[in-house]
Every structure is written in structure tokens, then in C-alpha cells.
């Protein structure tokens, strides 16, 4: 029988450990497809994060380097400065990138570090058990914002893409979502472009992917998609982000 569909070459056969309804699996697949399509499997070095996707090095069938909390852009910088001709990507969640690793991502972007960052924003800390993230929405409940995020106390949900796009070293930043087949297609297009931008040496590239966390949001996978659409999309607008403005 002819196999007409399967896992991309750049993914291992290892089964994902992610919770039902979590969209890490989709994004992993898209990244791997892009690596395959650009024929970069033997020229890519991935930097795995902390958080739910800490085991990403088990799934991407390319050279992988585990990083500590938030430091993936610094680790990727070290790798890229040794191998400027290779494709280097980081895969980071919102706790990792938007909180503990803010300095690292800001400066990697500002240096125009030629790396590609995949930023998964699900507005909550996943692996540590549903604590408030910098991206948690106003009024959203989390284990450390049990009465809902209070802007006066906890500050505002941070729009990382808008912030980073203001930096001169950031060559390409787009916010996408994996809530629908149409948006998944757009996500793949964005990831592709982020790798192209790296290959062309234009500077830093990041794709912010709005993602779900049914387990820590305490909803079913279907309700999680609806919650993302109803709550995240109005605050985190989709599209390419240039100079702090989403180009819808």
C-alpha cells in the first residue's frame, strides 16, 4: 500500500506527551514540515525550552540543544555565532519567553540575531500547573490569580510581538493562531517566512502562535478553541506586526 501521508521526516516517531486538545503537536508538525520543505533537516539546530514543550528535543529529528528557563535566545545566539550558515530556531512558551526570558528575547531581537523563534502563547503557565503568565488576560483565572488577573496588581497582558517589532533588529514578526484549519495554514506560511528571513540574513524572526491549554484553562478541547477565539483574539490581534502595529 502506498503511504500518502505521515509524519514529516524532521519529526521522530516518538509519540507526543501533550494533553488532549493541546496545540503543541500541531505547531511541532508545522515546524518540521517547513524544515523538510526547505531541505534543512541536516542543517538545523533547534533549541528546546522549559515548560510543557521541554521534551521537544525528543520530537524534532534534528540536532537539538536544551536550554534553561528563558535562555533559549542566548543559547541560540551562542550556536548561531559558531555556525552562522546553519538554521537555528528556538521554541518557547509564554512563561519562558515573556517572563523569565524577557531580557534574552529583547536583546536577541535587538541584535538582529539571525534565529527563528516560535513563541507559543496560551496565556498561562502549563507545565508548572496553571499559574498566571505575563500573557494571562485581564480577569482570567489562574492558580496564582484565583480571583482573575487584576491589572492594578499584576500589570497588563503583555503584547510581545508588538513590543519586539519596535526593535530595529527584528526583521519579521507575525502573530498567528492554530484555532482553525485556515489559521493553521497561515501559521505554516508564517513559520516558512520566519525560516526564509533567517536564511536571507535579514535579522531576527519570530512567529507568535496563539495556542490552547484545555487542562489548565479547565475546559474541554472544543471549548478551549472557543475560549481562544472569544478571549485571546480580541486582545492579541492576528497578522504581521510592523512597528508595533498589526498589519491585519
Amino acid at each position, binding site marked *: 500500500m502506498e503511504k500518502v501521508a505521515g509524519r514529516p521526516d524532521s519529526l521522530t516517531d516518538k509519540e507526543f506527551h501533550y494533553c488532549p486538545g493541546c496545540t503543541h503537536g500541531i505547531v511541532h508538525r508545522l515546524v518540521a514540515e517547513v524544515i523538510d520543505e526547505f531541505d534543512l533537516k541536516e*542543517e538545523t539546530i533547534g533549541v528546546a525550552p522549559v515548560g510543557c514543550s521541554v521534551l521537544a528535543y525528543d520530537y524534532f529529528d534534528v540536532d537539538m540543544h*536544551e536550554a534553561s528557563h528563558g535562555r533559549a535566545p542566548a543559547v541560540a545566539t551562542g550556536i548561531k555565532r559558531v555556525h552562522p550558515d546553519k538554521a537555528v530556531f528556538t521554541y518557547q512558551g509564554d512563561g519562558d519567553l515573556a517572563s523569565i526570558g524577557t531580557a534574552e528575547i529583547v536583546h536577541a531581537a535587538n541584535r538582529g540575531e539571525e534565529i527563528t523563534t516560535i513563541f507559543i502563547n496560551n496565556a498561562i503557565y502549563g507545565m508548572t500547573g496553571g499559574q498566571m503568565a505575563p500573557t494571562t488576560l485581564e480577569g482570567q483565572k489562574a492558580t496564582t490569580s484565583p480571583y482573575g488577573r487584576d491589572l492594578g496588581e499584576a500589570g497588563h497582558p503583555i503584547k510581545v510581538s508588538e513590543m519586539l517589532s519596535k526593535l530595529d533588529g527584528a526583521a519579521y514578526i507575525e502573530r498567528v493562531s492554530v484555532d482553525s484549519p485556515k489559521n493553521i495554514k497561515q501559521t505554516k506560511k508564517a513559520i516558512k517566512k520566519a525560516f526564509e528571513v533567517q536564511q536571507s540574513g535579514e535579522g531576527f524572526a519570530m512567529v507568535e502562535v496563539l495556542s490552547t491549554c484545555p487542562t489548565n484553562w479547565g475546559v474541554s478541547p472544543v471549548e478551549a478553541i472557543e475560549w481562544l477565539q472569544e478571549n485571546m483574539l480580541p486582545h492579541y490581534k492576528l497578522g504581521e506586526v510592523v512597528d508595533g502595529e498589526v498589519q491585519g
Partner: protein
Amino acid sequence: MGEKVLMKGNEAIGEAAIKAGCTHFFGYPITPQNDIPEYMSRRLPKEGGVFLQAESEVAASNMVYGAAGAGARVMTSSSSPGISLKAEGISYIAGAELPCVIVNIVRGGPGLGGIQPAQSDYFQATKGMAHGDFRLVVFAPSSVQEAVDLTMEAFDVADKYRNPVMVMGDGIIGQMMEPVEFKDIGTDDLPEKDWITDGAEGRDRNVINSLYLDPEKLEEHNWKLDRKYEKIKEEEVKYETSNMEDADVAIVAYGTTARIVKTAIKKARAEGIKVGLIRPITLFPFPEKVINEAADQVDKFLTVEMSTGQMVEDVRLAVNGKKPVEFYGRTGGVVPTPEEIVEQLKEVVE
């Protein structure tokens, strides 16, 4: 053999690294080690290497982690509070078994402390430095020439054991000028780096990692690291002894302090006190055997440090109760004088 040149310690360390094949340097300014990144920023790009001033020490040590994994000979340098920040990355580098060289030009602490020379980072350097069961190899030069030689050797030792190596000096070693010669001391029988992340061209992929969720696996990993440290203890101990042949008292001191002690010993011997010096050159592995053996000969030990007493604990462990071990220390950036040390010796002898 090259010719002798007059160089400042910090700059000589930078040049030694370049001569040893260091291609990448990631650092962050902090006094009193700034001449190292400054020197590297001038010299490394001209040699085809990369100098990058990171946004913080935390980022710098994680850049080192990435570059070491990618296969480069890489170095970073800092001073005490900066080393504390680098400790996060250093734990990961040790856990993932990557080679790199870290220079610590120690200043007084704790906290912001001061900027004058001290030896108060001994515990930090030799007792694990950051979270987890790991060790650094720690070299403690007591002259600019030795700083040069040990920096060069540090890269080979790091590669040989796939482990971070620290060169620990202080502001005096970093700031003073002495004639130095850059000897070619490189070894060429180092293991091939077949574990690096450089794109998996024509081979299975490599993963650089220190995460072991299964406790049994982590325990296995930690014992494997421990066997490596035991091997380092067997093979890499370095020390110098002087005036020990007829000594009744042995002073144990390292780095700058050991130089001052040498002057003190001359003065003390002129006054009839039979005193010798045991100078650890590696702080880890610690020269415990030579100290233990000396305990069969001398009546007393005196440990002199620019701290409130850190290495003295290792000296006591090495002496293992055979003889008394006294301590004399100045701290916070105060440097002991030969005269004070002689006074202490007189008290110890009485």
C-alpha cells in the same frame, strides 16, 4: 618558545586564550576583570573569532553553553557577583558535559562587596557553585605567567573531560604587569567532538541536554559525573612546595596570597623559624595527599587566605586531625602583608 613581553594579567589571560584556540568570547563588564572582554573585543575579530558583549552575565553564560555545544573553544570572564549570575549557565554546562573556560577575577563580597582583591569565592568555585552534583576544575595562578600557562591548559583540560574549567585569580593577578612568554603547551591527543550540535549532516542527530525526569537515570548520570571528578582527582592535581624539606610549620596558601607568604617565609627563616609553603595550584582537585603527608613531618599548619576562612576547611580535612591547623585571613579586599604573616607565624610557633 616565544619572546618575553610585558603584559597586564587580564590582557595576558585574553591573549593566552586566543593562542590556545579560543574562537568565541561572551561576557559582560564588571570590575576588576574588564580588561579581558576589552582585550577580546580588540583581538578576537582580527583572528576570525567572535566577541559578543551579552546583555547580562546570565545571557553570557548561556551563550557559552550554546557555543560550547556547537563545538567552539569558548571562554567567558567575570568577577564575583557576575560569576554568581553565570552560575545558572555553568550548572547546565557541567550537567550537559560541555567544555568551556571561565575566568573569575575575584573581588571582595558578599553582595556588591567591593572591587579590591579577595579570595572569598573559594567555596563557590570548589563546592559546586550552583545547583546539583557537579564540580569545576579550578586553577589558581599566582603570577601573570602562571595565569597564561593555566589559561592555555584550561582549554585542553576542559576538552579532555568535557567539563568547565575555571581560572580563578584576583584583582592583583588581573591588574599587575609582568613579563610573560606564550609557550605552546597544547596537546593534540584530545578526544574528537562527535557530540556537538552543528546540523546532523550525514549522521544521527545529537541532543545536548541535562534533563533526566527518571530519578534512576539522573542518579546514573550523577554517578557518571562523579567518576569523572574522581578521575580528575587522580590525574589533574597541581601544587608547588617550597622550603618544606626541614619545615616545622607548613603554610598553605594559593594565588596572590602565596606570593606574599613566600616573602614572609624569607623573613621568618631569617629569624630562625623553619617554615615551608604548600601552594595548591588546582583548588579542585585539591592537593590533599601532599598536605596529609606533610602532616607526618610538620608540627603545625597555618592557612593564609584573603577570606574569613574557606580553604582552611579543605586543609583540615586533608590533615585529618593529625596536626593542628591555624588560620590567618584578611578579607573584604584587604591584602595581608608579609609582616603580619610573620607575626602570625610567631604566635603559631609559640
